[in-house]
């Protein structure tokens, strides 16, 4: 057991993989000499040298594409996107090039590339630096997408992602970077955990399916609640663990999805759809889809605070619904129109 910040756990995962495999390299803006805008890669250049930990110009298409080419030819590049929102200038290289390469080459080429990026709202970075943006990546066959919920998850997911033969996006909720956790770091020897959910808490009354920074919110909501719940930390949004979700919902008969993004194109839709198509008639109550309103992430603390789900809000929504009433969203109380 040790106490690790999420960013330290990621750093450890990168270092352990670089130690284990000389083909693992890291590149990104200011990740080397400066150790990264969020200090995730601190010390890696000193330890592994400037050839394996590289600073790049501000050329996301250029360096993401370079990573694709390097990955085709034996390297295992880990690319940092300082804010995942920046992928908007470079998406093509990942989804249109990298994701199709193994398919097009009939398996003769693979692209074992990891794109890791800080993501998510809650820190006052405003509407262009607060996206989770998993929907840009999901829906691309050939690409895998995960989101980190804590230090143990981060460590395991990054090591597995690096060992995966395919391009993998790992979203790192920025707000968790400095959060500490007591962890036993798992032993990771392959990518078999890619796609697997983890049950973060067990209970009987309902199943909360969530991911990323919302996992902590869900766990916090359990404390002092009059009900108990399975909390499923999806970890992987593509492929996602249908079996784990179905098994839990079969047992609890109630489903709540908790997302940190508005509903359109969110992963919650796919989870609710799978349950609806596969567990018809087995639910005791309407499923709930909980998340922020469909607006750009507002900057002001006064507004961003109202935007994201919190433990209290989640608890309130669940309690209203357990009483058989349809809950109203916290962000749209009387007088405030959505």
């Amino acid at each position, binding site marked *: 057991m040790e106490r690790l910040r999420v960013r330290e756990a990621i750093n450890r995962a990168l270092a352990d993989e670089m130690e284990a495999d000389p083909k693992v390299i890291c590149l990104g*803006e200011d990740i080397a*000499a400066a150790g990264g805008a969020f200090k995730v890669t601190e010390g890696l250049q000193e330890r592994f040298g400037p050839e394996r930990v590289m600073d790049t110009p501000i*050329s996301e298409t250029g360096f993401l594409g370079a990573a694709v080419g390097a990955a085709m030819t034996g390297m295992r590049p880990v690319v940092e996107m300082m804010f995942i929102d920046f992928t908007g200038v470079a998406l093509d290289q990942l989804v249109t090039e990298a994701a199709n390469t193994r398919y097009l080459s009939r398996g003769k080429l693979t692209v074992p590339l990891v794109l890791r990026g800080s993501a998510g709202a809650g*820190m006052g970075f405003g509407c262009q630096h607060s996206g989770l943006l998993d929907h840009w990546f999901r829906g691309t066959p050939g690409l895998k997408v995960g989101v980190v919920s804590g230090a143990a998850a981060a460590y395991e997911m990054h090591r597995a992602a690096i060992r995966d033969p395919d391009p993998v996006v790992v979203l790192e909720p920025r707000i968790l970077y400095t959060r500490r956790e007591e962890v036993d770091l798992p032993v990771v020897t392959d990518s078999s955990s890619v796609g697997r959910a983890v049950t973060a808490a067990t209970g009987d009354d309902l199943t909360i399916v969530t991911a990323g920074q919302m996992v902590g919110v869900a766990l916090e909501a359990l404390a002092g609640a009059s009900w108990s719940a399975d909390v499923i930390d999806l970890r992987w949004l593509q492929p996602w663990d249908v079996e784990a979700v179905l098994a839990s919902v079969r047992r609890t008969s109630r489903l709540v999805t908790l997302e940190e993004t508005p509903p359109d194109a969110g992963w919650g839709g796919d989870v609710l759809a799978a349950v609806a198509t596969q567990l018809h008639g087995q639910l005791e109550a309407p499923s709930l889809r909980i998340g922020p*309103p469909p607006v*750009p992430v507002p*900057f002001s603390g006064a*507004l961003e605070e109202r935007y994201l789900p919190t433990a209290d809000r989640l608890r309130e929504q669940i309690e209203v619904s357990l009483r058989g009433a349809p809950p109203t969203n916290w962000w749209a109380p009387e007088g405030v129109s959505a």
Partner: protein
Amino acid sequence: MNTSMETVAGPPRRTVLAASRVAVFERMLEIRALEQRIQTLYTEGLVRGSTHLCIGQEAVCTGLAAAAPASDRVTCTYRGHGMALALGTSPAAVFGEILGRANGCAGGVGGSMHLVDVETGLMPTSAIVGAGLPIACGLALSSKLSRAGDVALTVFGDGSTNIGAFHESLNLAAIWKLPVVFVCENNLYGEYTRINLSTPIEDLAERASSYAMPSEIVDGQDHDEVCAAVGRALDRARSGEGPTLLEMKTYRYSGHSRSDPATYRPEGELDAWRQRDPIALFRGRLVAAGDLDDAAADAAEARVTEEVEAAAAEAIAADWPAPEEMFRHVEGSTT
């Protein structure tokens, strides 16, 4: 100089720069004082997210604003506080935005990286490197198609010249002969990386040749040089000759953003640049020309500091945005 109350209307605060060199001096002081106050507000825990100061680059702001008439629109970056003030946004509205208050120029929903002031011609500043350049081409296209006669200016850093949007924009502007001025603030760093580590040439103005575009290397510490070069580029643009790339050689005194101590800079570099401090330089020129004596300059400095402090106080006392502001000015998603 105007107080923040008088300046809410906008354009006059830009226009006055062309008319009065003392006003230019005061605006430079205002920019610096505001940036310094933001730094302390941060230390006081009042600023969320990220802020990017332009201390050391004030002459680029005032030079551009003094050269460009109020109808010329500007796109700029997250490092935009100084440009906003130069163009005419009031200090209170800039402070308010950075503090997320209702009196902010974007009502508090934008933040430090998203200043906007349609009245002064400041389009929403972008937090995405390079994003403002294509948009400025579009402002210029509007102007060209409607024969409006105004010119678009776009301000961006040295690091931004390595992103695709820079290349595509310069090519597009050149082939369409758009009335746009590309203003590169070469402050030698993109975040923590010195330009020589990211860019194989030293003078970014050279890149204009790829588009058969005229360019100039400009002393960005000298308000008069900036103003003159921007003026020449605006003249070209307005007379239908198309775009110009201006490279402003300048320097940011502070780190990239509020949390950066800038330890990556070689010893002595900052001090060398401070020798050519844009405000001291301009003050010296005013005093030499007899536009101002030292006492008056000192008095201006004291007055501006006080006014900026008052604007900060106004913003700190301002309301938070009302909850419904989160839902205004956006529609389209399914709830």
